[in-house]
């Protein structure tokens, strides 16, 4: 069986007149190129991409932003928009040249024989139509079913994608469904035309890790049952590793490496793949520092003639300036690097790990940077206005009541000076609300919060700016956390003037010092945010935080929006700053691998409350709260573990009123019985000092 990204389209040789579709291959791309715009500013998003997919095979396409992976998905569906056009090469699907198709031919192909699942389930469904409507439409259109037959088929499809109550689902509107349900509905819609090939463009990126695991399970099952061929596009190597059997790595519009899944993760051959894998934090193999890939993507309007990765590659030599063909590096493996064979298993090296990591110890008696006690926040439920008749007095009086819920439910948390505490949980668990309550960006309803030993809810320390001098916040989205109308100088000078200590030097010098701290050159002073990359913007966000010289920094998903290699460099920076300045972090993330990497201790949050606290190193050993266990088991990982996975059904339950028993009882795979619903579980202590709230003993859970 041969299914590799092959070399023939590499050189500018004329492409043969015959469609190169080969026996047993469902899809063959031969030198496919896509260009955006025209003239000197045009950009070649895909450059002579050649790959092939055997019938029933699954190919993973991996790449960071700007690699061209989404362009590839759109190109294969004939959905290129605007000024983009296919610029050369061919795509042959089941013997048919896709780009020779008429619009009518495309209509019969798209949705019918090639199905597409988009990234964002939250916007891919029409909010004004029922699921039934959106599912039956392709059935009527593509398969010519009657309305009744289409509805029955839609029901069957929903059943197939694991919807427990298809009838309720059919009559529902999208807003009533959770993200995971929507994605299932979208997969059902993609299957409606009974396609032979399914293209999945980041299908799980917008979902929580437990939901992601469910969807990946579903895709695996569908593949086996339907003999579907799949192209799975993702930036997440771990996710790719779950579903596909062949991986193709894209860099700057070119295929740089292709190999069977097991081999590419165990022994990457192209330097870019090595760098990418080395910059991933891993649950199983913690390291003091992550590797990074320095430099930036080449300018695709005028890409280098030779290797596109050479400028960022530690192994680069003069010969890399010549155009690089794909070379065979083993059975079924190719790499676009002449040194690939010679390099062999040489690991990626970068300056990052040259500096030895400092040993981290947090003194047991270190004073707390943050001490929160019983912090609570209630929100009004949207549309939850209720009128009830108050009969407590002599005359019944109607009273308007708002239905409320506990977003944060009596949370107590301590972060010691110099310590990093990770806070994990699925979306909706209340972690962001808690973080904002801690510095009073949201006013908590109850509890006590002390920063550096001073109560910030009352007294003189309650002033907004006094809080800001002690505790600061790094935001998630570098695109929206900087004012687009301000230069870096303005963005950094303001907090210096407002909160900074008196320091020698002019304002410009002080701004420069901040830039130095986040390893940015002075050339950035007069940049606007749109003139910087995401990683650079996030560095400015961190510099802004440092201006106040805080002792405690809350990072709310601070690296979640970044590419893997950028994420690694930001994580290293945060770790360095912590060690240099003695900062304490509350590091919020949905990504357990990231938290495991940076945190000393980890707190796990569910439905507004913390269910487990323990040292980060304990995440690798058994004996956890069932929820933590489920989270750990859901993390897509490169290290294929044989252990069976633990799956959670459903989604995070709505934060509720009056939880009488265990918060996790309704989803817990280890539920004992009624006791879980009615009695608050006790705190248990497990190995390595992990503390969690469960009716099971630690020994029972570890066993």
């Amino acid at each position: 069986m041969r299914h590799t990204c092959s070399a023939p389209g590499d050189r500018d040789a004329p492409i043969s007149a015959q469609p190169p579709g080969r026996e047993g291959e469902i899809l063959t791309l031969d030198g496919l190129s896509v260009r955006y715009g025209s003239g000197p500013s045009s950009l070649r998003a895909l450059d002579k991409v050649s790959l092939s997919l055997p019938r029933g095979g699954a190919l993973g396409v991996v790449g960071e932003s700007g690699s061209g992976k989404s362009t590839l998905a759109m190109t294969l569906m004939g959905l290129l928009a605007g000024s983009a056009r296919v610029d050369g090469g061919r795509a042959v699907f089941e013997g048919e040249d896709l780009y020779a198709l008429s619009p009518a031919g495309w209509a019969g192909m798209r949705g019918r024989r090639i199905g597409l699942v988009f990234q964002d389930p939250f916007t891919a469904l029409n909010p004004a139509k029922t699921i039934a409507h959106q599912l039956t439409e392709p059935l009527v259109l593509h398969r010519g079913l009657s309305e009744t037959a289409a509805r029955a088929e839609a029901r069957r499809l929903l059943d197939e994608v694991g919807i427990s109550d298809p009838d309720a689902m059919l009559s529902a509107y999208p807003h009533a469904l959770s993200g995971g349900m929507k994605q299932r509905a979208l997969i059902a819609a993609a299957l409606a035309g009974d396609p032979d090939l399914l293209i999945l463009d980041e299908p799980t990126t917008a979902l929580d890790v437990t939901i992601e695991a469910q969807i990946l399970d579903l895709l695996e099952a569908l593949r086996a049952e339907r003999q579907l061929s799949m192209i799975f596009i993702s930036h997440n190597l771990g996710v790719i590793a779950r579903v596909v059997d062949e991986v193709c790595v894209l860099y700057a519009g070119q295929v740089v490496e292709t190999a069977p899944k097991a081999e590419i993760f165990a022994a990457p051959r192209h330097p870019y793949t090595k760098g990418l894998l080395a910059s991933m934090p891993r649950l199983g193999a913690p390291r003091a520092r992550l590797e990074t890939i320095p430099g930036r993507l080449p300018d695709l309007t005028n890409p280098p003639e030779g290797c596109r990765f050479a400028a960022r590659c530690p192994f680069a030599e003069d010969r890399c300036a010549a155009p690089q063909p794909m070379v065979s590096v083993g059975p079924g493996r190719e790499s676009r690097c002449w040194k690939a064979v010679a390099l062999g298993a040489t690991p990626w090296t970068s300056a990052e790990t040259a500096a030895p990591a400092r040993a981290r110890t947090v003194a047991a008696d270190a004073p707390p940077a943050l001490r929160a006690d019983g912090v609570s926040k209630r929100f009004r439920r949207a549309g939850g206005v209720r009128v009830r008749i108050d009969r407590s007095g002599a005359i019944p009086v109607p009273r308007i009541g708002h239905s409320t819920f506990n977003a944060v439910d009596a949370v107590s948390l301590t972060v010691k000076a110099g310590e990093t505490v990770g806070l994990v949980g699925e979306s909706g668990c209340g972690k962001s609300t808690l973080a904002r309550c801690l510095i009073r960006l949201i006013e908590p309803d109850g509890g006590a919060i002390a920063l550096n030993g001073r109560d910030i809810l009352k007294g003189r320390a309650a002033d907004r700016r006094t809080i800001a001098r002690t505790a600061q916040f790094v935001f998630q989205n570098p695109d929206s956390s900087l004012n687009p109308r301000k230069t870096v100088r303005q963005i950094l000078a303001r907090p210096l003037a407002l909160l900074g200590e008196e320091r020698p030097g002019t304002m410009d010098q002080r701004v420069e010092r901040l830039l130095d701290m986040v390893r940015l050159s002075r050339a950035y002073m007069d940049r606007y945010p749109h003139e910087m990359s995401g990683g650079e913007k996030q560095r400015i966000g961190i510099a802004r935080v440092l201006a106040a010289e805080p002792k405690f920094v809350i990072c709310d998903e601070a690296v979640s929006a970044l590419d893997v290699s950028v994420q690694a460099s930001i994580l290293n920076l945060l770790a360095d700053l912590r060690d240099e300045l003695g900062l304490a972090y509350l590091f919020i993330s949905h990504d357990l691998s990231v938290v495991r990497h940076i945190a000393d201790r980890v707190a796990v949050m569910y439905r507004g409350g913390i269910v487990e606290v323990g040292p980060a190193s304990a995440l690798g050993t058994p004996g956890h709260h069932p929820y933590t266990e489920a989270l750990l088991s859901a993390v897509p990982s490169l290290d294929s573990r044989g252990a069976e996975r633990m799956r959670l059904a459903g989604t995070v339950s709505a934060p509720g009123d009056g939880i009488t028993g265990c918060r996790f009882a309704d989803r817990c795979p280890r539920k004992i019985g009624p006791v879980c619903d009615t009695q608050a579980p006790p705190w248990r202590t497990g190995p390595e000092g992990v503390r969690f709230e469960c009716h099971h003993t630690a020994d029972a859970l570890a066993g």
Partner: protein
Amino acid sequence: MVDATTATPAATAAPPARRRRPWPATLVWGTAGIAAVLAFALVGAVWTPHPYDGMNISARFAAPSATYWLGTDEFGRDVLSRVMAGAHLSLFMGAFATFISLAVGVPLGLIAGYFRGLREEVIMRAVDVMISIPPIMLGLLILAVTTPDIWKSAGAVGLIYVPIIVRLTRGVTLELGAQEFIEAARARGERDWYILFVEILPNAWPPIIVEAALRVTFAILLGAALSFLGLGVQPPASDWGLMIAEGRPFLSQAPWIAIAPGVALVVTVILINLFGDGLRERLDPRLRQKGA
């Protein structure tokens, strides 16, 4: 996913920083054109070829000629002189009314969009009430109780347009208020006024400027309607709007009476829009870089 570039930046040479771009062409032409219109209006205010109110009964409805370049109206008054003399009144009407609507509407919109809650309810319900009254009625209501005066009618027109500006500003503010840089400003203890006017407002300008350029046009026309009802400019003085209204009955007989001020109005409107567009481009660092 944001991008694939990593920086170990201090070491890496940063790509060349942006150069200061010249003004966008639209702004250059808009500014020059508006300057010319203002000069025209200033000259008209002090000197005209003929007295703007001088009647020549023998030359009623005279077609454009060497004496009367743009012809005469039904009283034999020189149309060019009247267009020149009316220019400053029309421009004043447009500019002052727009200024009032922005000065009142933008802060209210910012407050409604940023603070939400009770303040938003009060402002937006008041705006709803205002919008439910037809503009002319509202103008009449404001002016009926006082003596006619161009300041008052311009002010009235400005107030009539306040609801539109409030709604627009509130919409933009709602969107901007959800951005993380606003939360960052609150986290460092900025005062509310700073967040409203230094963080939000500069980002809210683009749609407001576009709307304001349109408002100038509508204000000139609405001002004319009020003048026509005897509530604004008093005869024999006349602004462009009033001239168009007065010339309309004679459109088939002597089209120049309405066409001359009409053309003056259209040219002014185009120039103002050009200016507004250029200003928007100039103020936006993202467009500024791409521009030229």
